[in-house]
């Protein structure tokens, strides 16, 4: 596949309410039960070649007694509702992932970290091996920028797991385009990929960085456009410039 869109992250104040609303709005089913530390995700598969939206939010309010910059960011961007807070790209090999890490002068977050708490865990205990870059104290998502993933084993990819049935369910046929803020040049510079708009199905709206909409095809159904503001609309990326 080469460089491709893997998934979008949708930060939510209440992942159950947001998934329910999206299901009623778009007929897209979701599956539940995956979590990491104080956060859980409901996964909305979007069809081939394996894309999804992860609706994410806090499920452990007791950890809010120990605040940090990232938790505060999540609270701030979900104060007024759902916001897209992550564009996650994918590559097909560890070598390609390491090239991105080298471009960003950083490391790869390895897929075989032995600490189970460092991984997303599904309801049946399954941990999906997943490597990503860049690595660092502050997530690049806070600056409205994408990161990159590699899955050594795609057979359990989140986009392929069965969903709960959903009233008015449609069968998604994949992402047609994603609307992002900024310009193609800005994103090409970040990724080190020239003319990234011809590599990825992106439209650029010149607004603040991040995802603003995704268009998904569906069998025997009109295309579905899911619009939510980018996280940078709630918290400017300039807050994290350093």
């Amino acid at each position: 596949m080469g460089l491709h869109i893997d998934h979008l992250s949708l930060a939510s104040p209440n992942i159950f309410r947001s998934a329910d609303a999206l299901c009623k709005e778009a007929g897209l089913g979701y599956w539940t039960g995956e979590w990491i530390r104080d956060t859980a995700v409901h996964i909305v598969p979007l069809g081939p070649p394996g894309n999804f939206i992860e609706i994410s939010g806090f499920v452990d309010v007791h950890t809010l007694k120990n605040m940090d910059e990232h938790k505060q960011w999540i609270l701030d961007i979900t104060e007024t509702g759902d916001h897209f807070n992550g564009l996650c790209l994918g590559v097909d090999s560890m070598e390609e992932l390491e090239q991105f890490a080298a471009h960003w002068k950083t490391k790869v977050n390895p897929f075989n970290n032995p600490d189970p708490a460092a991984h997303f865990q599904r309801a049946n205990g399954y941990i999906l091996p997943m490597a990503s870059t860049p690595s660092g104290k502050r997530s690049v998502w806070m600056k409205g920028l994408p990161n990159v993933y590699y899955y050594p084993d795609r057979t359990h990819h989140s986009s392929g797991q069965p969903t709960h049935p959903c009233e008015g369910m449609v069968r998604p046929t994949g992402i047609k385009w994603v609307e992002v803020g900024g310009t193609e040049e800005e994103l090409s510079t970040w990724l080190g990929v020239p003319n990234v708009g011809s590599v990825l199905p992106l439209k650029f709206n010149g607004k603040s960085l991040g995802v603003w909409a995704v268009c998904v095809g569906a069998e025997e159904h009109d295309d579905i456009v899911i619009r939510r503001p980018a996280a940078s609309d709630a918290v400017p990326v300039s807050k994290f410039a350093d």
Partner: protein
Amino acid sequence: MAAVLDHIHMGANNVYTTAHDITQTYKIGHYDGGFMSSITVGHKAVPLGGGVYIEIESLIDPFATSDLTKLPWWYTKALAAPEKAIWSGLCLRVNTMEELGEIAKRHGGVISPRAGRRTRPDGPGVKFWSAPSGPKVVNAWETGRPNWYCWEDRLYVHPSGQPVIPAPGLVDVQGVSWLEMGGTEQEMADWLGQHPDTLNMKFNGKSLGLYAVAVKTDMGEVVIRRRSATE
């Protein structure tokens, strides 16, 4: 790139009772795989870990055709076996259609002209390409030899990664540790175009085919023996 193990075919008299028996006996879970495009064949999948699964198939609609030549080649053999189920196929996987094409060519054939399809009860259709195929190519499984599949970009819904039914006492499956094959190592190496050690194959010198599958689990190794289709 060397091919890897993709799935193992178990032809059976009754897909329901055979899947139930596998789960009860070996504590390995299964799920309903739906039906094949031939509509007379039902399917249940048994994930084994490591990207591998068993597909159990049987007739589910004996009235679909009165033309006995249209029935699966393994069906009467399964009926004759003690467990009413046989090992009737071994399938490897390559990543790209280019690799699949090269394998097809090496065996004097082509990639199957039409994609194989299966309809799941709950999900999108399952689609795959196989080789070798062609008018001069004998069905590899009928001769006890493996064939090859390519899932293109559909590994994300590979049958080995789907959830199984919530039965009590299931083991945690962790992949196939070895396969017992008929014939010799050299015969298989010639057929595969790669060393059989890459697929953890052992050889018993009997007629070609699969005789046993050893599955690694968190409760130890489980060995599933069934009559080979060529016995």
